[in-house]
């Protein structure tokens, strides 16, 4: 699974992207966020309040209830501010 981070999510985690193996018990975006939260201080800060986060799976906006497959591209970011 490919993970991407943007804006302050990227800065707090300190990476633009990373590859992980999807743990067998992680079936939704919400479960993935909970799993990532345990990976260090930056992750903890980012994933402690999902209300401030948005997520896309395979380049499409989804809710945190969306389900995941092993080869998905998952991106976490703040609410968008373009235009």
């Amino acid at each position, binding site marked *: 699974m490919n993970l*991407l981070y*943007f*804006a*302050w999510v990227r800065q707090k985690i300190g990476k633009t992207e990373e590859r992980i193996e999807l743990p067998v018990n992680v079936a939704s975006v919400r479960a993935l966020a909970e799993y990532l939260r345990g990976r260090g201080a930056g992750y903890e800060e980012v994933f402690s309040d999902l209300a401030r986060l948005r997520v*896309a799976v395979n*380049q*499409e*906006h989804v809710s945190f209830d969306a389900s995941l497959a092993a080869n998905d591209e998952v*991106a976490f*970011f*703040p*609410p*968008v*501010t*373009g*235009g």
Partner: protein
Amino acid sequence: MTPLVRIQTADIDAARELQALAGRSGDAGAIATFSGHVRADGGLDALTLEHYPGMTEREIARHVAEAESKWPLLGATIIHRIGRLVPGERIVFVAVASAHRRAAFEACAFLMDHLKTRAPFWKREERGAHSQWVEARAADEEAAGRWRK
């Protein structure tokens, strides 16, 4: 109708893009455009924009498809800049061609509202030595929400 969609660091030549859209939009009676510029308010020195390459283009294509399902469009141009921009510079240019003005105006406003609230861009603003990420505005969400009524 194939829209022209571009994400670029270079300046946007709105004049040329407007001519180009008119040239390829057949019997369009109406072209509405929107140009967004960086404002200096609150002592802003610069904005730096980043985006999610790949998703940005796919997301904008979805907005155009949705606009086409609502209005009979003859052409559309959407250009968004990334990188560092100072006050006065153009950030975004959207132009829509249709047979009639109501469709052109509404589709142009619709595309702008969705660029603001759905396309994966993020702005960081600089004021003197201080910089911070821009927060999303509830007013933009409301503006986009009115198209779902």
